[in-house]
């Protein structure tokens, strides 16, 4: 290979190499495990002691408690979505979370959240709280509007009877 070619290869290798080095060191410094509440429970909280961790779960209904003295201090509990849906709440896969800061608008009961932080003394201290930008409008369920799959018999009756059915009057 000509010396010119070698120079270019070296130059390109330097660029590629430094980018690769930058990436690998940054990954080892900033990466964090991303688990669901259930996975966290099965691995055990101790296996993640001291490490920054990212956990996904849904807010357990009624668990949001705000410090009356400091609105920005909030405690809540998260669990896996299917656990919640099945109406069973095994104590094991609940995770207590403590967060200080403004909560996003979609931070509500049953809402999906992702928290980043560390586990200290059985409680997850979150420094970041993220919610999903839903393309499904979940909250409508509470307001009484039904999803097509979940039509109750009551609703069915209503939809059928768009016009009031007048029974033929028979007069004897």
């Amino acid at each position, binding site marked *: 290979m000509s010396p*010119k070619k070698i120079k270019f290869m070296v130059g390109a290798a330097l660029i590629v190499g430094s*980018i690769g080095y930058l*990436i690998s060191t940054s*990954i080892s410094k900033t*990466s964090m495990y991303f688990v669901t509440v259930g996975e966290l429970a099965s691995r055990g909280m101790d296996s993640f002691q001291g490490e920054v961790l990212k956990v996904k779960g849904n807010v357990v209904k009624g668990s949001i408690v705000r410090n009356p003295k400091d*609105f920005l201090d909030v405690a809540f509990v998260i669990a896996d979505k299917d656990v919640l849906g099945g109406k069973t709440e095994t104590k094991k896969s609940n995770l207590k979370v403590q967060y200080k800061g403004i909560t996003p608008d979609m931070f509500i009961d049953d809402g999906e959240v992702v928290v980043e932080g560390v586990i200290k003394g059985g409680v997850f201290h979150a420094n970041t709280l993220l919610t999903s*930008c839903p393309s499904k409008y979940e909250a409508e369920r509470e307001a009484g509007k039904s999803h*097509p799959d979940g039509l109750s018999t009551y609703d069915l009756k209503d939809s*059928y009877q768009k016009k009031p059915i007048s029974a033929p009057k028979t007069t004897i």
Partner: protein
Amino acid sequence: MNQIGEFSLFLALATAVYGLVCYAMAVKGNRIDLYLSADKTPLIVWGCVVISSAILLRAFLINDFSLEYVWAYSNKELDIFYKISSFWGGQKGSLLFWTLILTSYTAVVYFQNRKKNLEVFPYALAVLLAITTFFLFLLNFSTNPFEVLPLPPEDGRGLNPLLQNYWMVIHPPTLYLGYVGFTIPFAFAVGALLTKNLDDGWIRLTRKWTLVSWFFLCMGNLFGAQWAYIELGWGGYWAWDPVENAAFMPLLVATAYLHSVMIQEKKDMMKVWNMSLILLTFVMTIFGTFITRSGLIQSVHTFDEATLGYYFLGFLFVIIAASSALIISRLPLLKSKNELDSFLSRESSFLFNNLVLLGIAFATFWGTIFPIVSEAFRGVKVTVGPPFYNQVNVPIGMTLLFLMGIGPVIAWRKATWSNLKKNFAKPLIAGLVGALLLVGFVPLNSKAEVFAYITFVLCIFVLSTIFGEFYKGTVARRELRKETVAEALGSLVWKNKRRYGGYTVHIGVVLIFAGIAGSSAYSTNVEQHLRIGESLKIKDYTLRYVKLTAVEATNVKTRIIAELEVIKNGRHLWTARPEKEFYKGQNQPVSEVDLYSTWVEDLYVILADFREDESATIKVYVNPMVSWLWRGGLVIAFGTVIAMWPDRQERRRRLERLKKQAAVFAPAQE
């Protein structure tokens, strides 16, 4: 009516498949009759898709909730603009929207090229038809926008209030116009490979397409950032979310492509590189839409549908495999006549520019797919967040900024010491002077602040090289033609639209770099709970909480508005009115931040919470130089329009060139 829409999609699919088969057979058997038959199919497909789209739009506008998709994203009370934008608000409609744009672009390509008798044209059309077939297949068999609900409900579910702002109307369409646009150069590249027509003809043909698509993709990214900043209200504009990255990576690769094709045009080099880059750009656009739709990567944006993900994955695989095989088989024909002469030359700085851009793209890609890779290899998801992206992309970005000052100015082939001195002495001095001046003004207490400082110095350096170019050109014209400064500058730019349009775009990019540096390193915020009459202080602003009002905006929307008086240097500056909007039937409000934006900094006020006693939690950010991003975006838009503007001389030259090209499929009757 809806059944017509559904059938129309099916007809489109059938026609596209027919057209593909015809093209394939026409090529194989050299049959002109089949070619003529296939020739009109792109237009028929386009017509069918337009009809389907119109019918879906109509369903939205007349509140036809028998369609599941209309029910899911609209309701009776929705404003008409949002009814229209709901068209692309969900999975199915956005796929139809993509297909609409793709077929419309194909129709334009058809009309642009049908009289030119180009050998590559039918091949390009066939490729476009093939890609369209994929999307039509999805629309017919996987995600059908005309899916019907068994019992039509009275009213729809409505559009998420978070999406009810004008950004929803412009951000997705702009991005899609960009994404889909890169299909065209890709199709012509494949056509060139297939016909072995591997000079720069296909590049010249698709240059405007590349520029236009790049323009929309860039603006789409900026709109997304602005939307996040103004509507989502967390104080920032970019979170390195997988879907943000999905829109960013094609932009980076496309920028690399945009630059390296210049080298092929001027020096006939880097042919294999360019082929690979346009393939990569197209792959990244599909990958981007794949990430958004498959839920494979956790994001705040994802739609759902896991099966769709598999289809896209398969499609990606086929494209990459087929195109790579094609490139490899044509490798001998793609050998360049020239090669790089020197480390210090424009060619090599363009090459470095490409490597750096691809480096950022790769780092972003790696960070985005890392959770999946780590789960595959280690059984547990490991993610990286903004700290990773910032640590990696900031240094690489600064290198890119530096290169932006070198590339346009450095000599071709081999820069000698004397022309290095001539071109770079003044900008380097300007940079040094700037560095010295800034040291006094800019705090240097942390790594981030040091990086910001270096970025500012680099910005000064790059701006001086660009202004130097404008200056030198204007002076040269004045010497020759005795024009005024304005005339000389005007005709300089007008006679060299590509070059000076490009320089203008660079100015815009510099502004954006500066804005990012300033807002990342020097942002501060304060959050405090206030009772009426109390104040909070941030930097040299005092915000005094005046009152809380409730306004019934519509019969479903109530606005709670906090009023704060903003005082700076003892004088009233502004009245901030951050609010929370409550929608009936929804138990979660939408925050509307209030913003006071100047060249220096943004004062960004959020109403986080309020109580019955009218006390409120207020969070205030001071974000320096954020407006530089948006204004830089305007400069980029302006520069791109100049670069894209049709040039009569160039057009004449091109027509002459095309007339000389051989026509294989010249129709018997003209």
